[in-house]
Structures are given as C-alpha cells and as structure tokens.
C-alpha cells in the first residue's frame, strides 16, 4: 500500500521533530535584528513548506491550510517585509501549537477547528500589506487542472509571493503508483525530492480516479497534481524531476494578469516571459544605473577639460552627448521610481510594533497623494525616519505621563505628509497630540541627521502653532546612486564602483617576492600573472615597498580590458549604496577622485577615478 499507517507515523514523527526545531528557532528569531532574521526565517519557511506539502499529499487538509498561513507570514519575514517582534512571534507560536495538536490527533485533524489561528495569521499578513494589495490575501484564484475535473483554489497572495521572486508556475502531473510507489520511493521522500527544485504551492491527490490502492496493475493510476513554483524552465524541470515534458503544464497564460500586476517583463509578442526573472530585471537596472554614472563622470571630465582649454562647451557634439546622458538619467529614475506610500508603508508596521512592545498605543498615517520616490532612497530612509518617529512618540508619551490626568492616555497619532516643492520632496512628520509650544521639547536629531545627510538630504525641526513640532526631511527628486564597496585606504574611506571589481583576495600576506618595481611603478604577481599595482591615495614614495606590504587585501579591478590591483587596508567586503555628490571644480585637473559622498557616520568617502587609474595601468610595461 502506497500510503499506510507507517507513512502516517513517519509523517507524525518528522513533523514533531520539525515543530520542535521551529519552536526553538522562533524564540531565537525574536531576539534577532530584522536584518539577520531574514536567512533564519527562510530556514523556517522551508521547514513549514515540507510540513504543508506532506500534509497535502497525505490528505490532511487542515494541517496543510494552517501551514500555508504560517508559511505566508514567514515569507514576509524572510522578504524583510515584517519584523519578527514578540507580538508576531507569539501569533506564529500559537499557530504552530495548533499544528502540533492537529498532528497529535492526525486522523481527526480535518474535523478540528483552525479558524482562530487562521484569522490571526491572515490578519497579520494582510495588515502589513499596502491597501491595494490587501485583497490579494483573501482573493481566491481558481486554477483548472488539465485533463481533470478538479481545481486548485489558492489565494492570489500565495501566487504573487512566488511571482515576485521571478519564479515560473507549473502544474506537475504525477502518478503516485508509477512515479513513486513502483520506484520504491516513500511519499515523504518524494515530497522532499520535488521540493529541491522549487516550491510546492499546493497539491491535490485525485484519490477518486483509482479503484483501490491495493491493485498495482499498470492500468491503475493515482494522479497527484502539484502546483509548483520554480526558477527552472520547463525543459530543465523535466530533466531534474525525471518527469515527461507533457506532464508539466506551464501556467504563464493563465496567470498573465497577475504577472502584469507586478509590472514584470513581457516578450515582444505580448506574452509574459517568465524566464526573464526579477533577478535579471534587477541586474539590468543596476547595470543601467552604473553605466549612466560612468557616462556622467566621463561627460563631466570632458566638460572641465574643455573649460580648461578654453574650448567652447556649447559644441553640437557635446550637447548631443549631454542629451543622451540626461535621457539615460531620466530612464534610471523611472526604473527606480515607486509610489511613496508603497515604499514607506513599513513605517506603519514599525510604529505599531514599537507601540505594542512599549505599551504606548500608537498609529501612523501616511498622506502622500501620488508622489513617487526613488526606492533605493526610500529603503534607506526607513531606519532614520522610524527612529525620528519613535523619538517623537517617546516625547509625547513622557508629556502625557507628566500631565495631571496621567491616567487618561490618548493613543498617539503620527502623521507623515509627503509633498512636492519645486524640485524637492518634503516629508513632514507631526502629531496631533504634540501641539505645545516649548522650545525645550525639540528633539535631538544628531544621529538621524547624519543618516539622512548621507542621502544628500537634510532634516530639521520647526514649531508650528497649528501642528506643534514638525520634523522635516527634505530630499531631491533625482539622484545619482552608486553601488559599490566601502574600503579604507590610508585611513580614508573610498567607494569602489562594483562594476569594476572582479575579485577580492582577502587577508593576504604580501611578500616582497611578489612585488616588482618597473620604472616608477609597481607590479604584483596575482594568480601567476604580473599586473600593475596601483596606489590610489598617492601616499607612496617611489621604492617604498613597505607601503604595499602592509596592505591587508588586494582588490583586482578590470576597466575595459585593463586589469590592475589595488591594495587596501580593510579586511572584509562591505557593500554599500551611496548617493553621489559632485566634486568641486576647485579640486583641479589632477584630482584622482570623480565624486564624493557622505557615509551614515558623517564621514566623507571618495569615489576613485577608475578610468584614470586604468589609463595609468595601461602605460606600465610588463615584460
């Protein structure tokens, strides 16, 4: 018999083991910061998926349904959309407790109540989503199973979660008798095997299509359909799963509208194209942004060179280049443009969480009409702005506690108003509960100011008779943002553009037998090849080997076809996105930096002119 008591016992044992680990992991998750919680939540997410899929295969619908709801919440945590605060972890724990009870009463589990936990988990999922996406949690999509009268009924939220990850959605058609039992695979191992190649969103065992399970003749079939999400294409999936191609049904046409909602790519013949995933899309955006930055640097150098030579900068050619550059910049801004209210909704959650943890009932409202912002900026704004709001909440709470009628505590309502003013975006933060006029109450914004300044924005506070203390964050509408690595060289911060970095040789010990002097320059032996070793901070005296020997890491750069090495003092890779500020024309024509930026600690970092260093490197003769 394919599914027998033994299978159930194994399922119960396995699930209990998983639940035991999940409980411990959840407690750990609660104590982690939002950033490090992500990979941890992913691990939990995978464990719940196994429980869900196994329960689906064995026909335990309540366990499957509740696991799906738990999986949704864990998915939001692992995507960084939900912070695992005590309130959320508590709801998750209650949900898992119920799964445990269902497992304990496996054969009655389909008749047991799961409404209370389901409602709580669905509410949690829905609460963190922006208004227009909330309905996806309850909106059910009916997907017809090919050559079968049955359907999958799945919430659009579950489908959107995987679509957002750029995965293709398929229905896999298995026959448990031939594909599983006759190959002597246990059902649970089968589930684990399939899950290695993607995500089982739902599954359906068409038990009515077969006579009795005891009859193992070739005429009998036990169709088992899996709604499956995978980044593999149909052919790859067929090979990996050892399943005939005609048993894999691609749902790209059925789900066209959902893919469109997510604004994803379409092929030229208007069919949605799953292969071109979000990841690729993101990479393309980054490449476009990086190249536009580089183009902009080159253009600025050209203009200043012409100015120095007293040449006209109004030439037709230069204007033409300038126009292409501004169109590219515009395109980059469009690519990263996002509705401000969508981008900042996380603040609503953060305020609610803070209020819950500290027993200060608080609510945040965002008024923004249709203003768009750069999402690379908004994601860096969440932390300083939520800290500003928390400071405001604390201050109001203190005031309320000091009042004579301290027992009457109002819920604190914070309003974020986003408006456009000339070429700037102004974010005003105030509270209706904060209408006093006492200068002593102004908040200390030093740290948040530094973080906001790093975005080439500024932050101030003022008092208004109508709104009380108003915090103002002033941002630009267009930005030049560089993705790079923050490194230290001779106690100075530099940002190396990612696009030019090919390799890191960390914690290396540089000995004098791998460095040679060639004329006035140095070369280094890397992977059995001599390449130029460049000093970008101009600190080195000629013949000073020692300078290079003290470097902790070698970074291999490649600009065009020119490869060179730079020695740095940092011993780790530290990725960063920075907002560029142009360099002053007073720095002169010999400057080897191309732009500068502020870091969140208030320090200034330089972006080295990699094009210049590549040119220098190309002149070094390596024999």
């Amino acid at each position: 018999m394919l599914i027998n008591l033994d299978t159930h016992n194994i399922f119960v044992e396995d699930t209990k083991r998983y639940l035991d680990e999940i409980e411990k992991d959840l407690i750990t998750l609660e104590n982690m910061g939002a950033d490090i919680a992500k990979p941890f939540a992913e691990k939990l997410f995978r464990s719940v998926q196994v429980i869900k899929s196994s329960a689906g295969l064995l026909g335990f619908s309540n366990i499957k349904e509740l696991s799906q709801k738990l999986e949704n919440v864990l998915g939001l945590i692992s995507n960084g959309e939900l912070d695992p605060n005590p309130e959320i972890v508590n709801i998750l724990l209650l949900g898992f407790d119920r799964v445990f009870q269902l497992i304990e009463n496996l054969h009655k589990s389909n008749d047991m109540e799961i409404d209370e936990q389901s409602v709580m988990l669905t509410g949690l999922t829905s609460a963190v989503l922006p208004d227009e996406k909330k309905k996806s949690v309850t909106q059910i999509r009916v997907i017809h199973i090919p050559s079968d009268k049955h359907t999958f009924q799945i919430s659009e939220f579950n489908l959107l979660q995987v679509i957002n990850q750029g995965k293709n959605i398929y229905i896999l058609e298995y026959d448990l008798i031939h594909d599983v039992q006759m190959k002597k695979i246990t059902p649970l191992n089968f589930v684990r095997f399939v899950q290695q190649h993607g995500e089982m969103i739902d599954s359906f065992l068409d038990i009515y299509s077969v006579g009795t399970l005891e009859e193992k003749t070739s005429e009998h079939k036990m169709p088992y359909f899996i709604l499956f999400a995978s980044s593999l294409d149909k052919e790859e999936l067929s090979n990996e799963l050892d399943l005939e191609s005609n048993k894999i049904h691609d749902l790209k046409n059925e789900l066209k509208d959902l893919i469109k909602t997510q604004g994803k790519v379409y092929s030229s013949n208007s069919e949605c194209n799953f292969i071109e995933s979000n990841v690729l899309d993101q990479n393309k955006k980054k490449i476009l942004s990086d190249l536009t930055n580089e183009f902009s640097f080159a253009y600025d150098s050209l203009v200043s060179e012409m100015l120095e030579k007293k040449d006209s900068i109004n030439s037709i050619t230069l204007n033409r280049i300038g126009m292409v550059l501004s169109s590219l910049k515009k395109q980059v801004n469009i690519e990263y443009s996002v509705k401000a209210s969508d981008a900042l909704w996380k603040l609503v959650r953060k305020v609610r969480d803070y209020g819950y943890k500290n027993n200060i009932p608080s609510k945040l409202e965002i008024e923004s009409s249709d203003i768009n912002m750069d999402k690379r900026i908004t994601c860096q704004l969440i932390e300083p702005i939520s800290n500003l709001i928390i400071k405001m909440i604390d201050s109001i709470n203190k005031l309320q506690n000091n009042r004579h009628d301290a027992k009457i505590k109002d819920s604190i309502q914070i309003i974020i108003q986003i408006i456009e003013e000339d070429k700037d975006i102004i974010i005003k933060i105030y509270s209706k509960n904060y209408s006093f006029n006492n200068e002593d109450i102004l908040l200390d914004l030093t740290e948040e100011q530094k973080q906001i300044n790093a975005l080439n924005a500024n932050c101030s506070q003022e008092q208004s008779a109508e709104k009380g203390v108003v915090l103002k964050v002033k941002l630009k509408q267009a930005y030049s943002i560089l993705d790079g690595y923050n490194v230290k060289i001779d106690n100075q911060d530099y940002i190396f553009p990612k696009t030019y970095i090919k390799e890191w040789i960390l914690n290396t010990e540089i000995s004098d037998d791998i460095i040679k002097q060639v004329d006035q320059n140095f070369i280094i032996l890397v992977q059995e090849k001599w390449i130029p070793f460049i000093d970008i901070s101009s600190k080195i005296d000629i013949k000073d080997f020692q300078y290079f020997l003290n470097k902790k890491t070698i970074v291999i750069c490649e600009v065009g076809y020119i490869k060179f090495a730079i020695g740095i003092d940092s011993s780790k890779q530290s990725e960063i996105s920075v907002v560029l500020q142009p360099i002053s024309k007073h720095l002169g024509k010999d400057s080897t930096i191309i732009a500068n930026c502020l870091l969140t600690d208030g320090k200034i970092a330089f972006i080295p002119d990699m094009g210049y260093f590549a040119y220098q490197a190309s002149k070094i003769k390596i024999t």
Partner: protein
Amino acid sequence: MSRKISEKNDKVDLATFYVSEALCGMDILKIQEINKNMEITPVPNSPDFVVGVLNMRGRIVTIIDVCKKLGLPKAEATNKRRNIIVYSQNEYIGMLVDRVAEVVHAEWNKVTPPPSNVRGVQGKYFEGVYKTEDGLIAILDMEEVLKDESAA
C-alpha cells in the same frame, strides 16, 4: 568680475579677518556662515591651496587655504582658525582664515582702489583698501580669489 567701487551703495559692513598677518575684509552679506569645524578630509592629488573637504550638515564643502592662495607666509595653526563659507559659482566654498576679527562699518566712498601690490600680494585679489584708525583693511575680491583655481 566685481563691480566698480563707485557703483556700490555708500555703506557696507565688512567682516574682517586675518590671513597670516594681513588684515582682510569682505562684505558680510556674501558670507553664508563662519564655522570652526576643522574635521577636514584631505583630497588626494588636489592643488596645494585646497585643504580638503568638509561635511557641513550634509553638504560637502571644499576648503581653500586663503593664505596659500594669496601666497602669504604660513602662520602657525591655532584654535582661532575659522572657515568662512561663501557661495560662489554654484557651490559652497570654505575659505580658511587664521583668525576672525571684528565687523567694520565702512563707507565705499572712502575705499581706495587697490595698489598693484598689497603687502606682497597681487592687487587683482582685492576690491580696494579701507583705512581705519587701527590700520588698513584689504577688501578681498572673493570671486577673483576663487577664480581659475583649476588652471592655477
């Protein structure tokens, strides 16, 4: 290019400061702020009169050593050094001076054109000189001081 002295209003408040031993002044209205923030980041391969860059509340400002720019003998660095921040040619620039002195109420009609050489400095850097009871104030032509540095 600075306007002719005769075109200016009669009265002007001059912020005065010392560059090395020279008492200089400039129209106080041209000054954005004066700060004593000396957390200046040196910039590799910049001209020697560029001290470096400074984070002024989120704005990266280049600091120019006026003493070096004018070619005056270097004074000993003290805690009285200040950055005079001005807005010139679409950017904020800090002019590092050795000491800030008082504000002098001057009358333009008493400002005389600069001689070709003021205490060893080329006259082109000055709008004029103003005589007070305590001595001469050389009025800096900020635009001229900050001009053409890239070609200098």
